[in-house]
């Protein structure tokens, strides 16, 4: 490489370094554990995390003002009661897969501030629950 090319290399390194730094900071500050219901127990009393599971049939109790609900999510092996406050997604119902984000308290209740349902994407596998 010729001498006068080094400054471009330096410029490139600065840019790459800046992006790498942003990514490092982003991961450090925003990453959360993504656990199954069974794995969630060790997080009791700890930090925010995401938990994935299926809504236990018949467990949904919607708040009178429809701005929240109490329900259980399960992964066959274990089940955790969830208390959620916020707008309910349209797709939220029994027996669907949901992702909740929040904290698990010492009594084993998960306080969720985010409730995500699987969006009915156009690519939904046709096998799911439809009789053939």
């Amino acid at each position: 490489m010729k001498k006068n090319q080094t400054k471009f290399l330096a410029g490139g390194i600065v840019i790459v370094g800046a992006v790498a730094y942003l990514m490092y900071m982003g991961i450090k500050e925003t990453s959360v554990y993504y656990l199954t219901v069974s794995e969630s127990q060790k997080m009791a009393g700890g930090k925010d995390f995401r938990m994935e599971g299926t809504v236990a049939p018949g467990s949904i109790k919607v708040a009178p003002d429809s701005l929240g609900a109490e329900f259980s999510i399960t992964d066959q092996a274990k089940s955790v009661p969830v208390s959620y406050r916020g707008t309910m997604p349209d797709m939220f119902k029994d027996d669907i897969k949901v992702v909740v984000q929040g904290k698990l308290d010492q009594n084993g209740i998960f306080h969720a501030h985010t409730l995500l349902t699987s969006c009915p994407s156009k690519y939904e596998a046709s096998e799911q629950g439809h009789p053939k």
Partner: protein
Amino acid sequence: MIEIGELSLALSLAVSVYAAVASFWGGRANNDVLVRSGQNAYFALLGLLTAASAALLYAFVSRDFTVEYVYNYSNRDLAMFYTVSAFWAGQKGSLLLWAWMLSLFGTIAILQNRKKNRHIMPYVTGILAVSLIHFSSLMIFASPVFEKMTLIPPDGHGLNPMLQNPGMIFHPPTLYIGFVGFAIPFAFAMAALMRRQEGDIWIRSTRRWTIFSWFFLLMGNLLGANWAYVELGWGGYWAWDPVENASFMPWLVGTAYLHSVMIQEKKNMLKFWNVSLVATTFCLTMFGTFITRSGLISSVHSFGASTVGTQFGFFLILVVVFSVAMIALRRDMLQSENQLDSILSRESSFLFNNLILLGAAFAVMWGTTFPMISEAVRGVKITVGPPFFNIVMVPIGLFLLVLTGLCPLIAWRKASLDNLKRNFLIPFLAAVLGGAAMLALGMREFMAWLFFVAAVFVMATIVMEFIRGVRGRTAGGKENVLGGAYNLVARNKRRYGGYIIHAGMVAMFVGFTGNVWNQSVEASVKPGQQLKIGNYTVTYMGTEYSKPKPSVEEYVATLLLEQGGKKLGYLRPEKNFYHNLDQLSEEPPMPNSEVAIRSTLKEDVYVIFAALNDDNSATIKVLVNPLVIWLWIGGFIMGVGTIIAMWPDRREQKLLEAALAQTTTA
């Protein structure tokens, strides 16, 4: 009809194999008969896939529920409009649409180039035919389009109500046009390498394909954002979901490619870089499809662990290995003939723009695949959400926006102080003044302020370029201002089309910045009660019930919107329930919210009817989203710019012909 479809697909697999073999063989052996036969086979693929598509379309229109796909995505109740769009509502049909587009685009590219680009066309045809082998076999084995039901149901399962929205009719095909279109420049690039064709002919020959695909990829994303905004009812348009990221990454790299080819055309530099970028863009279109459909990454879009993932994975590996091998084997062809001179030059500013776009794509990929990586490395799944992307992408976006102003105007080779002063002094002053004015008007959000200052700077550079250009043309007194402006753009379509695209980008950035001031409030209210947000007052009037179709129940809430005591009008968000009329199904009715939006240039008032409660109250969420409309306006401006940049140009044609004449004599 179904048998015709199945037969067409089976034939298309056989014919695509033949087209690939004949083309590569014919090209290698310089056998014109074989080459022509390969091309004709490719044209036949268009016929076969058109027949297969017609068969599927006919099955939908004739409500043939013996076809599993038709059963799962439509019912007798569904309007014809949406019945047609149900074609690409699921995986099977969207693969067929993809394959059909690939056969169509390939046919057009072959017809355009088979005479003038004789040298590389057999390889282009061969590469495209290989892609069609992949798609045809997917549709026959992994994801059979015409699969039959074991029972014959009286009615279909119906189309998901969320997909019954005009946005869903245009969004997927638009996105696929973008995905598929990038196969053309990729095929030309690889064919040029295989054939040892020197120079930038492959770039010039596919310039229109590139910008066309790039634009459709952008529009596909934007239509998806618009659909999410008006239909999903969470108040936003982009959530950094893996599915969105999957189509955003190739766009970022495609944008880098679109810019860096200019350096090769002008300065014979960055050859290696350009081939790598076009290959990366194409690989990312495959990668996006692979991660979203293989079930490897969980997304709020439930793709399900679908059957096509594995084959897509193998095809992706094949494409990556092939591209890397070709570039490595032909690296002697990819030496730069010139060097960078100064860090203050157009070349280097383009290079930095490229690095940042690639960095952005890499960051998006990292954030998207992070759960997978962390699980593989540390055995625990860690996820990053929208906050990660905001931390990373907001500064990158700001830097890119500034470069949008700098890159087109900085001088080639080495910018002098004079050049800098001439092009940037006024925009710089405009930005300073604008920034001061915004501070004086009370803007306190630092990031938003920076974005607006940058936006003023970029717009000033663009406006100045137009003024200077028009002045130059009217100076002689032969042209008036309008005629001068017309001639200016008509004679430099690519350049001024590009400026208009940049102006659209600025408008979009203004739209993104509006997010800083988003507000929301939610509550349950009885008729007559009010909600307050900003200086708006929303009064709940009541809810009406109706049943327009046997399968649909509608609840429409009426809300009076007032601003500072002035009546602005009524908003009518809906909560609808879709019953499944299919006798075989016992699913409960599916709720679906239709939001109501009042859009102005300043801000959107966005109302969601969340629920009607037992005590006669309604749960309402109101959001105020400033500047969202500028996103859609920006998209429109970019469309205008793209059309101008793509318009046929005689001078460009001549340059290409000259380059072609040179290679044939060499």
